[in-house]
Structures are given as C-alpha cells and as structure tokens.
C-alpha cells in the first residue's frame, strides 16, 4: 500500500480544508440521524439505508474531486453528494417522496441526478440494479473526453456489487479506453446479509482490478485522510489521462442493510471491533491531537452541522406531495418536467470557485 510514500496528497490540505472534511462527515451523519427519526415517525416512504460507519470514506473520496467533476453515489454514499454540494433538503424531500424533490416524488432516496449543461458538479443517480453505474460513469468519462472537458468521473461499488456482470464490463471498457474513471470499492463486510467470504474468494477487494490491468490500492476506509490520499492519487491519474483506478476501502457497515433489517446475521464481535474505529471519532481525535482544531472548534462545527440538518429536514417536511395528475408527464422529451437540485457550499468555502483543496497540478501525485 503506497500510503507510506514520503509526500501525501493530504499534506497540501489547508486547515480550512481539514475542518471542512470534518464538517462534511458530521453533516452526513447528522442528516442520516435525522432521517432515522423521520423513519421512526413513518415519514420516510419506503426503507432507510444508512451509511453509519462509512461516512468518512464517502466524504474523503469525493473530496478528492474538483468542483466540476462527476460523481455517482450508491445508497451509502450520501457523503459524496454532500461534498459535491447537493443541498440536504433535496435528500430529505427524496426520502419523503415530496413533490418538490429532485425526482418530483417519482424515485427514492439518492436516486436523482444533477447534470448541468456546463459548469457545476455533475451527479448521476443510480438505478437499483447494482453495477450499472460503472459503465454509465465510464460513459460520462468518455463523453467528457469527447466534449473536451477534463473532468473525472467517480463512482462507488459495494463488495456485493463487484460480483455483477455490469461492474466487469464497465471496468474493462474503462481500462481499454483509458477513461478518467475512479471507482471506490467498499468492502463493508456484508452485502445485505451475505458476508464478503461468500461474495468473492479474495482477501482484498481491490484485487478485482487485476482483471482489468488498472492501478489499485487498498486503504483503511475509516481513516479519512488515507482514503483522501488514495482517492486523490486516483483522481490525478485520471485527470492526467492515465486511465481508471480502483481504490479499495476496508470499512464496516455498522447497521443492518436497511433500518428494518434485524441484523441477526451480523457478527457482534466484528461490530464491536469496528465501533472503536469510527471514522468521525478518529478524525476528530486526529484534528485535536495534531492541534489543527480544539475540542471547542469541533463542538462548534458539530452544533452547526446538527442545526443545519434539522433545519433542512424541517423545510423538507413542509414541502407538499406531488400532484397525482402529474404522474403521466415526462416519459418522453417535450414535456415540461425539468427538475433542478440546488447546489450549496459549506461555510468553509461559501461560494463557488473557492478552491477546496490545492489545485490538481500542485497536489502530490
């Protein structure tokens, strides 16, 4: 694992960057905590799928992207959307199937897109069928190249998702075409109830990449800076025309597959062991230890994050359901439906264009 090389991309992160990373992880968790409350109140339509314990890797990997790059999140990658500026309210309205949600109540949770014509972050939503985002994001990379845009496409895949044919075809195509694609492969120990040992005969998920001849590395997924470093290396390779990479993250799904899951199949000792490795707590401790922030600084961020999540949830709750008579519109072009998602910036940047980390050319790669 090349994380021991002398210079780490994260060395270039400013104090604000580091605090922003913390904020994004916290906000991700706070949004989900709020969703869990709404779920228990029966205000979430359908299921709730948490990323508890994995917020760090989603946030830190997406943090390696530039503002105008493209990201495609799976259900447990809320953090990546928060980093790219998706307004939390949009997420709440999705879960509550509101008429003003990015899908106008037509699809669930993180299943939404944001594809501006030019400029601004690109978000491609998934379909439920796992694996398909890999070829689609390879296509985003291909399209970008053809349009002369130097963007990088990042997406995620679970240990389970790597077993799909679509994953294979997409990875291989990206490799042959040397597309600017970064795939974060999350070994979170389970796919629904299936342990990784029943998913693949591999000790390390990143070995999947060997079949495509693409660079890969495995990192501690609960060490946010390690994830950032590996992702950043992969993003730089992609940006410099060196093709796709796969970053394997070793992490743990700390809840059941969904909130309704009884978790009976999950190993208790494993859960306990990983509890001690909570990515946010670890990063918190790191910030304090390295004197980048005081407990008070972080408590302030915590409070800000929580208040924001709650305010956004409240706004979303007040939104109306969709009008039933809108149901048939928008199957084909020519209809009026053109959803928008509001892009927001963290208090650490506040406006578009403020660099959130050292520019690509200066980053250690």
């Amino acid at each position, binding site marked *: 694992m090349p994380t021991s090389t002398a210079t780490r991309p994260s060395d270039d992160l400013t104090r604000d960057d580091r605090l922003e990373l913390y904020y994004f992880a916290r906000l991700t968790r706070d949004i989900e905590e709020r969703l869990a409350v709404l779920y228990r109140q029966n205000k979430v*339509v359908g299921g709730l799928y948490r990323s508890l314990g994995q917020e760090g890797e989603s946030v830190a990997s997406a943090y390696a992207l530039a503002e105008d790059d493209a990201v495609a999140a799976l259900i447990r990658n809320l953090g990546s959307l928060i980093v790219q500026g998706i307004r939390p309210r949009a997420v709440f309205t999705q879960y509550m*199937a509101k*008429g003003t949600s990015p899908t106008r*109540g*037509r*699809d669930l949770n993180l299943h939404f897109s944001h594809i501006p014509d030019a400029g601004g972050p690109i978000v491609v939503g998934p379909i439920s069928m796992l694996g398909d985002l890999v070829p689609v994001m390879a296509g985003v990379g291909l399209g970008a190249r053809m349009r002369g845009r130097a963007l990088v496409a990042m997406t995620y895949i679970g240990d389970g998702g790597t077993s799909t*044919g679509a994953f294979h075809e997409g990875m291989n195509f990206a490799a042959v075409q040397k597309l600017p694609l970064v795939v974060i492969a999350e070994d979170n120990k389970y796919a629904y109830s299936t342990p990784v040992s029943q998913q693949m005969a591999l000790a390390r998920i990143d070995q999947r990449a060997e079949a495509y001849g693409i660079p890969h590395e495995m990192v501690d997924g609960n060490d946010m800076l390690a994830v950032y470093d590996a992702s950043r290396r992969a993003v730089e390779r992609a940006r410099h025309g060196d093709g796709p990479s796969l970053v394997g993250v070793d992490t743990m799904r700390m809840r059941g597959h969904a909130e309704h899951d009884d978790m009976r199949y999950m190993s208790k000792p494993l859960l306990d062991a990983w509890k001690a490795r909570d990515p946010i707590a670890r990063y918190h401790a790191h910030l304090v230890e390295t004197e980048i922030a005081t407990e008070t600084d972080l408590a302030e961020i915590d409070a800000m994050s929580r208040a924001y999540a709650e305010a956004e949830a409240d706004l979303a709750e007040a939104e109306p359901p969709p009008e039933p008579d809108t149901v048939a519109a928008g199957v084909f072009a020519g209809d009026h439906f053109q959803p928008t998602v509001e892009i927001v910036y963290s208090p650490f940047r506040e406006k578009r264009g403020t660099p959130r980390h050292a520019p690509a050319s200066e980053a250690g790669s």
Partner: protein
Amino acid sequence: MAEMTYLEAIRQGLAEEMARDERVYAIGEDIGAYGGAFKVTEGLLERFGAERVIGTPISETAIIGAAIGSAYLGMRPVAELQFIDFVACCFNILTNFAAKSRYRWGAGVPMVVRGPCGGGVSGGPFHSANPEAHFLHTPGLKIVEPSTAYDAKGLIKAAIRDDDPVLFLEHKFLYRRVKDEVPDADYVVPIGQAVVRRPGDDVTVVTFGAMTYTALEAAEQLAQRDVEVEVIDLRTLSPLDHETVLQSVAKTNKVVVLHEAQRTGGIGAEIAAAITERGFEHLDAPPVRLASLDTPVPYNPGLEAAFRPGVEQIVAAVGQLVEY
C-alpha cells in the same frame, strides 16, 4: 387444513418439495441465514443445510446459469430473485439458454425462477415490476402468478414438478396480507388452469395476482347496483387458459381485461386479442383493457395510486360496458 399467509404457503410448498425430492434445492441472494429479503426461505437453511440452500453473490446471470447447469445434471433448482425486477439482469440467459434448450436439443431445464413482483408498496421504479409481458413472448417458458395461499402452495409445487422452466411471480403485496385455508395433504394446482373467483352473468373481468382482489371489490360494489361481474383469476399466465375465459365471455358477452403492469404491450393485449379472435361472435362490446399508465412505476404513494388501475376504474369500465 391450516390457515396461513400467501408467503407461508410458498415456503411450505417449497419445503415440502425439498423434503419429498432431494433433487430440489434453493439458490439465490441472501436466502440462507437471512431467509431471503422477504423471509420466504426462512428456516430452510437450518433444515436442509448449506448444500441445498445456496446463498450466492450478487450475480443473477450466475444464479440462472448455475440453475441451468445443475438441472442438466438432474437437479431441480428453485432460484430466487430478490425482487423480480432483477430478472432484467438475467434476461439473456433465462430467455435464450433456459427457455430454448429443450426445443434445440431435447434437454429440458426443470427449474423455477421465483421472486416478488408487483406494486402498491411504494417500491418505486425498480422494486415494483410486473414483468410477465416480457416473458409471455418467450416460447419454452411458463409463467404463473397465484393470488391465494392455496394456489401459492399448489402452484409452487406444480412449478417445481414441471419439467420446464417456470417463472413464478409472487405478488409482494399479498405476501402477508392474504391468508387462507391450505390443506395438509399434498396437492398441486395444475399449471394452465384459470379459476372463476366469482360467478356473474353481466360482465367478465379477467385478471390475476393482487388485482384479483381489486376486481372482487369492484364486483361487490357493482352487485349492489345489480350488475353481476364474473371474476376470472388466470393463475397461469403462460400458457393462457383461453377455454375458461371464452366460456365466460360466451355467457357475459362483455369483458374487462385488468392487470397491474403498464398498458401498452402488456399481457392484456394478448388476452384481449385472443378473446376477439376466438370469441368475436360473442362480443357485444370491445374487450376493455384496464392497466397501469405507460410510465415507469412512480414511488410516491399518491402517484402510484394514480398510476395503477383501482376499484373506481373497474366500476366505471364495467358500468360503461353494461350501457354499451
């Protein structure tokens, strides 16, 4: 006789077949320790062991491929798709390998592909599919969809004993909502036989699955207006039981074809076309199709209700036919 849910009836039918015939086994994602996403296979791992209750990676094509290969070796696989929507991910191997095998080579593929279908539970565009029409056009494949616990058990057994591949659609809305009497004795519900759920002389409603209950509810309301609706539950969608349908239409001369999948290209087209072809002389009015709108299945409950046909539409359609 025991009262049990639709879901329990499937589980019991599967377990009985596994006990009866050691060639029968279950394969699918999360069907072992977890008992499947809907718990249909709960307890099977404990009872039959990991050799016969095989949890798989997320690989629908591998699941069906493994089922086919093992069937060639004499096994009788029952493959679960976690949601029937994922049959799209094994469309090729199911329609091209499994379904065409016997015709090409005489090598039968006795296998059941089962999974939860249907809407009404806010599943959204990828967890609400009623895919029968995509497979109706596949010679070599049978399709069944029970609406009662009795039929669920009888049909799963028939499907497992069938020597050809059977797509077994379980309506997830019914899993725990429907409960009825199921005999203790071994029985099957033969594939290919529809059943009249409610007799009536005025208008026939041909349907299946969860819509059977919607039709019965509408029939109840219409009866109060002295309109007697005959409700036919097809149970098997391929091959279709044209006989039962035609007999009814010969009596009522008017028919509504009702299903939950989208309208265009749906199974209702085949049913309506077949009725017209064979029963034109009996028809006093054109067969009316009631189905969902031609959109993906929307997530929001209000939208989904607007998308799907309901009691009201059936009552209205039957009312119009009576006036016709």
